[in-house]
C-alpha cells in the first residue's frame, strides 16, 4: 500500500511513527529541510542554544519529536525540502518540487495531510513596512536563529502565542517594549471556567503573565494596533487602549498575529468539503474524529485541519495513521483509539474556551481604514474591495485582484472576507471562501 504523509511537524511525525510500527514504509514529504514543524523549529547546524532555552517547558516534547524524526528517516522514503504543490484526487497523485527545483509526480493510495498552520494576519496601515512581521514568524526567528526582530519591539495579537513570545523574548534578554492583547479582561474571565479543561495549559498562561509582570513587561488587554508609522521602516506604532485612548509608541519592530490559520490548500484541491467554524471564524475542511475525509484516501491531522496546538497534533497524527491502518484492513487496538478520542475531546473543550477567551478581532479587521493595503502581494486596499459590488470573495478577487498574488490569499483571505462581509452587511460566512488552485505555493518555470 502506498501511503504518503505530507508534513513532518508533530502530527506528521506521530503519523509516520505509527505507520512504520504497522510495517508500512510511507513516502514522507516535508517542505522545510528538517522535521519538527514550526512549533519545534530547529536552529541551523552549528547553533548552540540548548533545547531548554529554545522550547522552555516543551523541551522534552521537542527533543522527543526530533529524536523520532531522526530514528524514522531511515525507515521511510524521506523527502525533505520538498513542496507538495498540487493534489489530484481522481488519479490520486501529488505534484512535488524538490530542493533542486525538479518536479515529480507522487502516487498515493492514502495520504495524510499534516500541513500545519501560519500566522493569521490583521492588516493595518503600514503593516507592509520593513520591520513588521507575523507573531509566529518573529517566534521562529527567535527559535531558529536567536534573533529578536528589533531593539524596541511591539507584539500585537491574542492568546497563548502572544504571551509565550513575550516571555521568550524577555528570557532571551530582549523584552518587548509594548504588548497589545486584543482580548479584554472580561472576555478572558468569562471563558475562564472552560480553560480549566486543561489546568496545566491554563496555569502556564498565568505563570507567563506573572513572570512578565516581575520583569516589568506590561500587557495591555483590549488594546489594538492602528497604524505603523515610519518613512522607510517601522518607527512607531499608533495604538488604541481598552478605553479608546490613542497612544504612539516608538518601536523598530512590530509582530502582528491573531492566532493561527490552518494551511488547508491541499485539502481544498483534494475536494474535501469545508464548513464554517464559528469559533475560529474560519472555513475548515471536514473530517471525522479519526481524520478521515469524504474524499477517498485523504486524511487530515494537526493544525493543518483545525488549530489545536502541538499536543492535539501528535494525538491526531497517531489517530489518522491508525485510521489508515484500519481502512487497509489491519487491526487496531480499540482501547488506544478510545483513549485518543477521549483526550482529543478534552483538548477540544479547552481549545473552544481559548477561542472564546482570545477571539480574532473581526470587528477591527472589518473596520480597517480604506487606505489599508489589504492584499500586499497585489497592492489592493480595503477601499478597493469595498468599492466593488462583489457578493462573495471569489468575485472580489476577480474584480480587484485581491488574493491573486504570490500568497494566493493565504495571508489576506480571512481579513478580506471580514471587510467584504461588513461592506455587504452580511455574516462573514455568507461571502464564502477563496477557491484554491494549484500551485499552492509558487513553482519554478522549467
Amino acid at each position, binding site marked *: 500500500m502506498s501511503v504518503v504523509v505530507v508534513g513532518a511537524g508533530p502530527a506528521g511525525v506521530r503519523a509516520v511513527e505509527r505507520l512504520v510500527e504497522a510495517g508500512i514504509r510511507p513516502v514522507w514529504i516535508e517542505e522545510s529541510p528538517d522535521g519538527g514543524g514550526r512549533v519545534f523549529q530547529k536552529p541551523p547546524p552549528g547553533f548552540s542554544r540548548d533545547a531548554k532555552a529554545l522550547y522552555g517547558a516543551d523541551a522534552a516534547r521537542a527533543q522527543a519529536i526530533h529524536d523520532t524524526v531522526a530514528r524514522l528517516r531511515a525507515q521511510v522514503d524521506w523527502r525533505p525540502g520538498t513542496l507538495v504543490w498540487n493534489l489530484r484526487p481522481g488519479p490520486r497523485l501529488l505534484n512535488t518540487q524538490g530542493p533542486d527545483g525538479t518536479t515529480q509526480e507522487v502516487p498515493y493510495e492514502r495520504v495524510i495531510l499534516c500541513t500545519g498552520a501560519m500566522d493569521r494576519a490583521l492588516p493595518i496601515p503600514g503593516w507592509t513596512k520593513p520591520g513588521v512581521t507575523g507573531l509566529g514568524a518573529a517566534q521562529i526567528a527567535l527559535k531558529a536563529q536567536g534573533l529578536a526582530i528589533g531593539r524596541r519591539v511591539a507584539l500585537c495579537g491574542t492568546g497563548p502565542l502572544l504571551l509565550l513570545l513575550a516571555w521568550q523574548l524577555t528570557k532571551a534578554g530582549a523584552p518587548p517594549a509594548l504588548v497589545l492583547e486584543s482580548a479584554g479582561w472580561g472576555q478572558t474571565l468569562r471563558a475562564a471556567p472552560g480553560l480549566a479543561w486543561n489546568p496545566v495549559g491554563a496555569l502556564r498562561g498565568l505563570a507567563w503573565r506573572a513572570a512578565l509582570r516581575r520583569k516589568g513587561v506590561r500587557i495591555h488587554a483590549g488594546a489594538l494596533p492602528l497604524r505603523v508609522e515610519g518613512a522607510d521602516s517601522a518607527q512607531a506604532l499608533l495604538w488604541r487602549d481598552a478605553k479608546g485612548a490613542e497612544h504612539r509608541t516608538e518601536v523598530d519592530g512590530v509582530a502582528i498575529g491573531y492566532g493561527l490559520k490552518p494551511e488547508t490548500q491541499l485539502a481544498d484541491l483534494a475536494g474535501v468539503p469545508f464548513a464554517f467554524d464559528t469559533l475560529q471564524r474560519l472555513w475548515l475542511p471536514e473530517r471525522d474524529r479519526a481524520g478521515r475525509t469524504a474524499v477517498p484516501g485523504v486524511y487530515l491531522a494537526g493544525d493543518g485541519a483545525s488549530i489545536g496546538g502541538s499536543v492535539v497534533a501528535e494525538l491526531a497524527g497517531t489517530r489518522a495513521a491508525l485510521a489508515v491502518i484500519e481502512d487497509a484492513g489491519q487491526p487496531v487496538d480499540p482501547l488506544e483509539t478510545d483513549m485518543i478520542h477521549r483526550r482529543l475531546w478534552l483538548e477540544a473543550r479547552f481549545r473552544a474556551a481559548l477561542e472564546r477567551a482570545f477571539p480574532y478581532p473581526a470587528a477591527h479587521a472589518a473596520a480597517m481604514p480604506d487606505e489599508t493595503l489589504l492584499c500586499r502581494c497585489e497592492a489592493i486596499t480595503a477601499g478597493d474591495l469595498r468599492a466593488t*459590488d462583489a457578493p462573495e470573495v471569489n468575485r472580489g478577487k476577480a474584480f480587484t485582484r485581491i488574493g491573486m498574488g504570490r500568497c494566493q490569499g493565504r495571508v489576506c483571505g480571512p481579513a478580506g472576507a471580514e471587510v467584504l462581509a461588513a461592506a455587504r452587511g452580511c455574516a462573514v460566512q455568507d461571502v464564502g471562501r477563496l477557491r484554491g488552485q494549484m500551485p499552492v505555493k509558487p513553482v519554478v518555470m522549467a
Partner: protein
Amino acid sequence: MSARDDRRAQAKPSTGGLNRVPITADVLIIGGGGAGVSAALHLAKRGTRVVLLERGLIGGQASGVNHGGVRQQGRHPAEIPLAIRSRRLWSNIQELCGSDVEFDPCGHLKLARNAEQEADLLRWNEMAKGYGLETTMLGRNAIRAQHPYFGESVIAGSLLAEDGSANPRLLAPALARMARAAGATLLEHHKVESIEPGFRVLANGQEFTAPILLNTAGFWGGEVAARFGEPVPVESLNPNMLVTEPLPYFCSVNVGVVGGDVYLRQIPRGNVILGGGRGESDPALPRSRPLPDPGFLAMRKAIEIIPRLEGALIIRSWTGIDGGMPDALPVMGWSHTTPGLLHAFGFSGHGFMLGPAVGEILSELVLDGRTDVPLEAFDIARFNRQDGVEPDVWKTRLE
C-alpha cells in the same frame, strides 16, 4: 418586469417552492457569458423586455477565465467579419461597458518558428487583406531588433497592430451592470430545470415565458439545442492557464504562435499570463481544474520563444468550461427546428473578444430580422451534412 421583481427573484432561496405566476418577457436568454449579457444589453437598450438566466455567476465560465485576447489575427475567414465588427465596438468599450475593462490595443504578434509557419502567416495575411485587415510582417532581423527578448527559435512574426487584450474577469460583469441599468433582468444562480416550447422555462422554482429564446449557454448550449432536436458535437473545452509572479516589464504585445500551442502576454503589473493545452472538467457539477502536464508543456514552449522566462515562478493557474466545436467555429443563428429559438454558443476558446458584437447581432436578428454580418458558416445544420465538417485549412482549431 420591474426592478422590484428583479430583487424578489434574486432574493429567492435557490430551492424555493414553485412560483405558479410566470414572469413574462419579450426575450429570454439562457447563459450569462459575454454573448448573453451583451445580447441583454443591446436588446434592453432598444426597449425590449429581457430576462437572462445564469446558472452560476455572470461571466463565471469561458467568458471570465480565458486569456483575454482581443484578436482578429489568425481567425478563420468565416469569423473575420464578426471579429472586425466586434473590434469596432471595442474602440468604444468604455461607453458600452461603463468601464475600460483594461482594454489595451497593444497589438497581437503571431510568431513563426519555422519556414512552414512563416508561409502560413503570409498566406493568412494575404487572405485577411481582402477583408481590410492590415498586418505587418517582421522578418528575422526586424523581430530581433524590435523584440530582443525572443529566442533563436523565433524566425518571423506578423503584427496586427490594432489587436490587443483586455481583462476577461471584468467584461461580462461590466456588460451586465449596463444591461441592468438599461432595464434588463439578469438572474444569477438560476439554473434552468426545464424548457418547453412556446417558450416556458423553469429555473430556480420560477417559470419564465417569452416568444423568443436565446441560447447563449456556452458548452451547455449543446443541451439546449438537443432539447429541440438539434444535437451538435460540442465538447467541454478547458483552456489551461498559468500566470507568473510579476517580472520586470519587457513585453508590450499580446503574443501567439502559429499552431497555437502557447500564447502569452505581460500585464502592466508585470505578471506574464500564459496558456496552452487543456485542463479537465466535469460540466455536470460544473467544475474544472487546470492540469500540471499541459502546464509544463506550455512553460517549455514559452521558454523556447522567450528564454528569460526560465526560472520564473508560476503563482497561479486556472481554467473554465467553454463549448468547443469540431470545426472551431461557433453555432450562431436561428434554429432549424423551433421558431423563435436563436443560438449563439460553442465559441471554441476564442469567443471573448466577439462577445460585444455577438450580442448586438443577436439583437438585430430578433428586432430587425437581419444583420450585415454573414452567419452561414455558423449554421447549426452544418453538422448534418453528409461530408461532415470542412477541413481546417486555416489551422484555427488549436487557438
